[in-house]
């Protein structure tokens, strides 16, 4: 079964807040659900499929289904793949719709790590029974050093430089200046990135994404419903999902799961990397973008540093306009999970609703790619290819 053309993204909404100390997480989930329904022109009672991940209170569907009083559910899915969960959810929603299991699927993400004081240098408790914990946690792996080790290896194997990584942030900041909701709106230079404080070698503070409250939601519906609505059609044409890990001790940090999900999504969609007009690329750190751009096939392995340099990711000047909302590096990384905002900006681009200064002309084909967990030990990867109809 292929999902190509079997489902459409009909609603998308990003919460405007980046700090929400007086909102409950449940309230944020409900507010983004309401926003996405209004965007689509649907109502709560139209929802018969609900998807959420580990950021939802209780980490499965029933608490939020209860809070929102969703009573028509025929299909539920609380797959948790960290930050890329929501890209996986879109794929699963398309599969469920194609299989006749639901008609209108709601996917929500929300959280408050900014208000709760979360940081990428904190050692996080990871719970009981995890087989890797006794062999890893004594060494204090944290989000930033797990990615930093990948950056260090990439520099060693391919000669990638800190200045090349900095270009990823520079491009994101060029886009964020046009986003009134962005957490960081100032345009930065390569020099400012490499001169920002070193957090974990070789990643500087400005190589790291923001920590923000907020959230987002999308609604996926079957074609007949999509065509009855007034919004531009965003057709799902290719998906891929996987997880990559330490392979029994044969650790290889030179590539990510995108090397597997990208080709599958492109094959299903029947398009090539060179056809993509706009790409949302997960940007927890600058190195994350470089690795995924290589793995998705936008350039050869090892040439990502060169590819992202000199503004090649900046809309209007570069060959691959990316993260035109400012991405996780400048705009928003709600709940420490950037997958939802990646989908939302791709939908804006395909609808022609991105800010005019960053809107890609005639954007008819877009890709969104996400990573969850940490590429330095275990991560999820998900690719989504969408077409404007």
């Amino acid at each position, binding site marked *: 079964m292929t999902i190509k053309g079997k489902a459409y993204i009909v609603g998308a909404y990003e919460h405007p807040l980046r700090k929400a100390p007086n909102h409950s997480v449940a309230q944020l989930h409900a507010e983004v659900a309401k926003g996405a329904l209004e965007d689509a022109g649907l109502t709560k009672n139209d929802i018969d499929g609900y998807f959420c991940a580990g950021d939802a209170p209780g980490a499965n569907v029933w608490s939020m289904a209860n809070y929102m009083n969703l009573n028509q559910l025929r299909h539920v899915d609380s797959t948790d793949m960290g930050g890329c969960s929501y890209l996986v959810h879109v794929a699963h929603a398309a599969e469920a719709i194609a299989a006749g299991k639901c008609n209108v699927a709601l996917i929500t993400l929300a959280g408050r790590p900014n208000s709760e004081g979360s940081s990428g240098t904190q050692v996080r408790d990871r719970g009981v029974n995890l*087989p890797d914990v*006794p*062999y890893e946690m004594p060494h204090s792996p944290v989000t930033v050093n797990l990615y930093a*080790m990948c950056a260090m290896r990439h520099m060693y194997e391919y000669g990638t430089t800190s200045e090349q990584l900095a270009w990823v942030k520079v491009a994101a900041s060029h886009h964020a200046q046009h986003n009134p909701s962005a957490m960081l709106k100032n345009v930065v230079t390569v020099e400012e990135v490499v001169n920002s404080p070193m957090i974990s070698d070789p990643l500087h503070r400005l190589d790291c994404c923001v920590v923000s409250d907020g959230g987002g939601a999308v609604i996926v519906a079957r074609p007949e419903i999509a065509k009855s609505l007034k919004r531009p059609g965003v057709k799902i044409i290719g998906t891929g999902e996987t997880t990559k890990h*330490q392979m029994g*001790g044969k650790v290889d940090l030179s590539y990510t799961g995108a090397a597997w999900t990208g080709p599958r999504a492109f094959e299903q969609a029947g398009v090539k990397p060179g056809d993509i007009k706009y790409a949302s690329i997960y940007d927890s750190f600058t190195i994350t973008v470089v690795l995924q751009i290589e793995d998705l096939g936008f350039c050869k392995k090892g040439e990502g540093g060169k590819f992202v340099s000199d503004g090649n990711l900046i809309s209007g000047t570069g060959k691959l306009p990316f993260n035109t909302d400012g991405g996780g590096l400048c705009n928003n990384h709600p709940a420490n999970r950037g997958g939802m905002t990646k989908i939302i900006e791709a939908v804006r681009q395909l609808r022609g609703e991105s800010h005019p200064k960053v809107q890609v002309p005639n954007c008819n084909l877009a890709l969104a790619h996400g990573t969850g967990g940490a590429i330095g030990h275990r991560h999820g990867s998900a690719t989504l290819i969408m077409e404007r109809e």
Partner: protein
Amino acid sequence: MATPYQERKVRDPAVNPGDQEYFDAAAEGKLMLKKCGDCGEVHHYPRALCPFCFSDKVSWVQAKGTGEIYTYSVTRRGGPVPYCIAYVTLDEGVKMMTNIVDTDLDTIKIGQRVKVVFKKSENGTSVPMFAPA
């Protein structure tokens, strides 16, 4: 510039059934790996089933305790002291997550030869780390 190694509080390994022997051996200064009696592959972290062929004929073997740094990062913010996390490729072929210790953290390099040393966690458990060979 130099970033001298400083002792830091090491989290206790939260062991699950099957893990204790690894740390008991560590207390005697031995670094252990699991080896499969069927396919012959060595793996890490240790498991009850071989991650390559799913055989349950896995047994402990002592590693030489030497290897080279595959990658590393010195984390300078967030903790009370800077520390170096790394993956070391053991001479037996597997890579393990660890810390590089007992050296100027600014001199650490990928490819550097290292040997195992054992540092105590807060409850006195021996944890394998690596220092320049």
